[in-house]
Structures are given as structure tokens and as C-alpha cells.
């Protein structure tokens, strides 16, 4: 099971009410390479991975839940006190009509989250390569988001999240190296 901590992994600040940016950020909430997809992908894969790498995938999946909460916090703060008019002007009129300010798991274009965003092949190399690719894609998304904002506080949080993708990619790459080792086989032959 999981233990909830009444704290964010990193202090999230935004310096202005900016529902337009919230609309873009939702990509990392309910999009194909977002934090929800990442968390679910890893936490689902771990059941059928070799023991040597379960811990790696389990713990990165857990950290993704913390990132999901950070993204949600950004979206919440960026829209919290926006008026209906401001939501409409930011291109969130359709969202507002259905959800008010509630967060919803969809991407920046409004497509609802789907389990088909990630795979579970059962082949550890195939799964870990997907994980590495997922981290690089999420890193890219953070870059495109950083390119679209001039809010220094928001940028700061996005930079943190982007750097975490770099570290996760590194650990998944190491997991592949661990599986390439002959260790177990040496004893058998």
C-alpha cells in the first residue's frame, strides 16, 4: 500500500492567474506522456518484471504520483480565482461548461485519458525501453511547456520536473544494464 504525506515533493509556486497555461499543463496530467500515464505504466509493469529491477520501477512509479500532485497543484493555482470570462478567453470555455474548475484527466487538446497510452509487454527489455522512451518524451513535453511560459515561479517547478525525467531515464538505463549481466547464468552453466 502507499502512505500519503501531507507535503509536496517540491514547493510549487505560480506568480499569476494564468488559465491559458493551465490548459497546456494539463497535458502532463492526463496526456499520453503525462505523470498519470507514467505512474500507472510503471506500477503496472512491476508485477511481471525480474526481481532485480522491480524496486527501481516501483519507486520511480511512486515518485511519479508525487509529480502528478505537483502538476495538479500548478493547474489548481493557475485557475483557482479565474472568472468564467477568463476561463472562456483562455480557451477553457468547453472545460468550464463541463467541469467548472475541477481537474479532469485529459490532454491539452481535450482528449480523455486512456489506458492505451502505455503498454505492458511482459518482456522486460521491451518494457524498460518503453520506460526510457516515456521519460524522454515527458522531458520534451516539459521543454515545450517551459518555452510557452515566462512565469519564473512556474518555470522553476517545470525545470525541477524535467530534471527528474533525466534522472529516471538514467536509472531505467541502468536497469537494462543490470538485466544484460550474465550473473544468474554463470552459476547454472
Amino acid at each position, binding site marked *: 500500500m502507499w502512505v500519503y504525506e501531507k507535503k509536496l515533493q*517540491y514547493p510549487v509556486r505560480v506568480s499569476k492567474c494564468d488559465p491559458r497555461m493551465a490548459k497546456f499543463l494539463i497535458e502532463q496530467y492526463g496526456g499520453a506522456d503525462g505523470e498519470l500515464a507514467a505512474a500507472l505504466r510503471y506500477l503496472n509493469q512491476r508485477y511481471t518484471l525480474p526481481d532485480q529491477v522491480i524496486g527501481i520501477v516501483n519507486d520511480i512509479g511512486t515518485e511519479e504520483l508525487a509529480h502528478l500532485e505537483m502538476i495538479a497543484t500548478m493547474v489548481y493555482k493557475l485557475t483557482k480565482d479565474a472568472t468564467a470570462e477568463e476561463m472562456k478567453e483562455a480557451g477553457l470555455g468547453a472545460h468550464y461548461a463541463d467541469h467548472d474548475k475541477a481537474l479532469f484527466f485529459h490532454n491539452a487538446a481535450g482528449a480523455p485519458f486512456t489506458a492505451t497510452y502505455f503498454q505492458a509487454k511482459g518482456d522486460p527489455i521491451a518494457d524498460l525501453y518503453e520506460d526510457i522512451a516515456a521519460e524522454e518524451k515527458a*522531458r*520534451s513535453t*516539459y*521543454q515545450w511547456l*517551459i*518555452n510557452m511560459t515566462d512565469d519564473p515561479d512556474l518555470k522553476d517547478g517545470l*525545470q*525541477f*520536473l*524535467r*530534471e*527528474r525525467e*533525466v*534522472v529516471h*531515464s*538514467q536509472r531505467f*538505463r*541502468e536497469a537494462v*544494464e543490470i538485466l544484460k549481466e550474465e550473473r544468474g547464468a554463470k552459476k547454472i552453466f
Partner: protein
Amino acid sequence: MFTYRKAYRPYISPWDPCPPLLVKTYETPPQLYMGFQPMGLPQFNSREALRRGTLWPALFAPYTNPYKDAKGGVCDDGGTPMDG
């Protein structure tokens, strides 16, 4: 010494409707080069680590918008990790 940003020049047609970006870039961050992380690498102090998103300088590669002032072309040098 390698860089964490690479650059290339996209083909420019006389019929391209927008003012061309002369140079495009992409990121090649440290995890592409590190291999299995060696033990005992230097660390940031804890405050810096949180601020930067990693404990290890060797994995730290901050991103800045390379196209900020790029209309009509700049960022020509293939980049350093810090530029932009």
C-alpha cells in the same frame, strides 16, 4: 567535452510562408552519455540538490528556451548546456 544541445540547419524553401528559423536545436542530456553511474560522484549540497532536481552535478542539465530570440536565426554554435 560534449554538449547537451545539438543544432542543425533545416532546409529553407523560397516558398516557406513564415520567416525561417535558420537553426533548430535538440537536447542531448547527460543520461545519454553516462553509462552506469560511477560510485562516489561529487554531489550538490542538499539545498542545491532540491533546487536543481538532482543530487549529482553530472546529471544536471538545465533547459532554456533556445528559440526565445531566434526569429531570423541565432543559436548557431551547437550550444553549451547553459546557453539561451
